[in-house]
C-alpha cells in the first residue's frame, strides 16, 4: 500500500544519504570508540568526532566539544532540566520559567522536578501560541535558574521568539534552554546569535536515525549527569557511544544545513498551497496556531463538526495525525490546543499536517480533494453541523456530563 506520509512531526524517514553514511558502521567499522588499543576504536572515534562537528555547524556552536550525544531529545530535555537543577542544588526554592505548550519531555520532567521542590512557572501564551514576552519577563526573578522554551511547537508549528527570549535571559543572567527538535532543518537555528546555553536535538525528526540525539551545552555551563558510568561525553553522559546512530545524526545535520534554504522554501510553497486550498474549498476550517510565525512544514486545522479520527479514516492513504504522536494514547484532546484556548469540539476536529521531503504538489491536490469530499460527507452525518445550521452555539451549549 502506497501510503502518503504527512506526519513528519512524529518522525521522518532516514535520508538515503544518511543510511549510506551509516552503513560502514553497521558492518565493518563496528569498533567501540572507547577501545584505545586498536584501530577499530580509533576509526569509531574519528567518526564520532566528525559528527560532533557537523552538529556544531548546524546550530552555530563555537566548538564541537559543546555537543553531548544522547539517546534522543527526550533524554536531552531531561538532562538539560535535571542536570541544571542538580548543579544549582545549593540554591533554595529555585524556579524554572517555561510555557504550557512545551513537549511532554519538558512538561513531565518539570512535573517531576516540582516534586523535588523546584517551582515551575508558566509564562502566558496567546491564542496563536506565541509567548507573551512581558509576562515572561515578569516571571523571572533572582531564584530563576533556567528558562526553557521550545524553538517550535510539534503540533501547531508556532515558532517562538527565541532571539528575544535570549536577550531577556542574558539581561537577567539566567541560563536558556531550547528544545529545537522540530526547528532543526526547517528554520535557521543559531546558539551564539540567540544566546542559547542548552539546546536539544533529535535525530529522527530531521531524517536521521531514531534513538540518537544530542544536547548542546555551552562551554562553562555545568550540569550534573543523569547517566553515570565511565565518564564518556566530558562526564555528562556515560555509556558506549551509538556510533552508527551518531554518524547518521551528523550526516543528517550536514544535510539539514545544506538543504535548509531550498527545502524550507519548497515546503512553504506546499504548505501555503494546502492552506489556501482548504480555505477555498472547505468552509469553517479554522487554522490552529499563528498564521505566519510557524514552521514551513506545519499546518493544523480544525474542521468544525467533523471528528478528527473519522476524517483521518476517510483520508485513508495518507498518514496524518490528530494530535501529538508522542502522547496520543488517551482519548483526551490535545493539551496544546487546549492551552491556546481551542474549544473542545474543535480540538476533537483538528488534524495536523506535517509535510516533508517526500511530499509534492500532486499529493497536496489529492489530499485537498479527499478532505473536501470527506468533510462534506461527515458533516452530513454530524448532529453538530445541523445544530450549527440552526444557529446553536456548540461551545456554549449545555451538554449533559455523560460517561
Amino acid at each position: 500500500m502506497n501510503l502518503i506520509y504527512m506526519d513528519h512531526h512524529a518522525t521522518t524517514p532516514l535520508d538515503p544519504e544518511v543510511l549510506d553514511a551509516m552503513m560502514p558502521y553497521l558492518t565493518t567499522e563496528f569498533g567501540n570508540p572507547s577501545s584505545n588499543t586498536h584501530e577499530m576504536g580509533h576509526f569509531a572515534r574519528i567518526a564520532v568526532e566528525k559528527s560532533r562537528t557537523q552538529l556544531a555547524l548546524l546550530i552555530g556552536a563555537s566548538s564541537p566539544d559543546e555537543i553531548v550525544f544522547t539517546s534522543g531529545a527526550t533524554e536531552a530535555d531531561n538532562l538539560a532540566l535535571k542536570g541544571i537543577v542538580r548543579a544549582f542544588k545549593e540554591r533554595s526554592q529555585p524556579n524554572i520559567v517555561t510555557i504550557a505548550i512545551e513537549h511532554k519531555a519538558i512538561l513531565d520532567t518539570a512535573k517531576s522536578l516540582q516534586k523535588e521542590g523546584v517551582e515551575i512557572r508558566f509564562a502566558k501564551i496567546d491564542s496563536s501560541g506565541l509567548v507573551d514576552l512581558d509576562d515572561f519577563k515578569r516571571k523571572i526573578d533572582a531564584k530563576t535558574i533556567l528558562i526553557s522554551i521550545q524553538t517550535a511547537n510539534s503540533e501547531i508549528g508556532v515558532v517562538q521568539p527565541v532571539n528575544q527570549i535570549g536577550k531577556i535571559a542574558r539581561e537577567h543572567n539566567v541560563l536558556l534552554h531550547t528544545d529545537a527538535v522540530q526547528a532543526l532543518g526547517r528554520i535557521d537555528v543559531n546558539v551564539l546569535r540567540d544566546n542559547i546555553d542548552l539546546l536539544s536535538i533529535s535525530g529522527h525528526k530531521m531524517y536521521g536515525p531514531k534513538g540518537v540525539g544530542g544536547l548542546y551545552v555551552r562551554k562553562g555551563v555545568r550540569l550534573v549527569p543523569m547517566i553515570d558510568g565511565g565518564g564518556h561525553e566530558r562526564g555528562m553522559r556515560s555509556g558506549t557511544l551509538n556510533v552508527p546512530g551518531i554518524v547518521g545524526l551528523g550526516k543528517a545535520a550536514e544535510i539539514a544545513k545544506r538543504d535548509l534554504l531550498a527545502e524550507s522554501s519548497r515546503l512553504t510553497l506546499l504548505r501555503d498551497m494546502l492552506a489556501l486550498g482548504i480555505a477555498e474549498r472547505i468552509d469553517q476550517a479554522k487554522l490552529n496556531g499563528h498564521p505566519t510565525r510557524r514552521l514551513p512544514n506545519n499546518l493544523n486545522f480544525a474542521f468544525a463538526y467533523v471528528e478528527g479520527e473519522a476524517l483521518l479514516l476517510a483520508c485513508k492513504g495518507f498518514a496524518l495525525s490528530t494530535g501529538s504522536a508522542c502522547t496520543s494514547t488517551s482519548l483526551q484532546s490535545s493539551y496544546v490546543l487546549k492551552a491556546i484556548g481551542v474549544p473542545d469540539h474543535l480540538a476533537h476536529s483538528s488534524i495536523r499536517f506535517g509535510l516533508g521531503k517526500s511530499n509534492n504538489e500532486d499529493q497536496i491536490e489529492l489530499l485537498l480533494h479527499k478532505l473536501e469530499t470527506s468533510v462534506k460527507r461527515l458533516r452530513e452525518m454530524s448532529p453538530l453541523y445541523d445544530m450549527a445550521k440552526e444557529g446553536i452555539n456548540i461551545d456554549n451549549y449545555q451538554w449533559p456530563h455523560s460517561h
Partner: protein
Amino acid sequence: MDVWENYTEKVMDHYENPRNVGIVDNANGVGIVGNPACGDVMKLTIRVENNIIVDAKFKTFGCGAAIATSSMVTEMVKGKNIDTALEISNKGVMEALGGLPKVKRHCSVLAEDALKAAIENYKKSLLPGRPEKSAHELDNHKGNVDETVHTAE
C-alpha cells in the same frame, strides 16, 4: 486507538457506507447522547408504530467506531418491538460488528445509550398530558431525558 489494523471489515463497511443516516420523518422518539468535549455525539431518531420501531436513523459526530456502531444499531432495531429493542446491549452491537478495539468499546456503550434514550423518550411522550412533540423539540439527553436543553446563549 490503534484503529488501523483493528477495525474489522464490518466496522469499516459501516463506517464507509453507513446505513440510515439522517432524521426520521415524523419521528416520535429521539435520543441524543455524548458530548463534543469527549469527541462523540450520537443522535438517534425513531418512528414507533404499534410498539414496533418502523424506522430509525442516526446522526453522529465521532470516530469511525462511533459512526459504525450508530449505523449498526439502527439496522438492528428496525422492525423490532420496543421491548425487544431495549434488550439490545452494547455487547450485541459489538458482536454484530465483529468486535471493536478495546479503546473503542465506549462507542458501543454510547450506541446502546442512544437507543435507550430514544425509546424512553418515545415512552414518555405517551404519558397523559404530554402532546407528541416534533423530533426536534424532542431532543434530550441521557440523565435528563425530560428537560429541554436547548439553552444556547
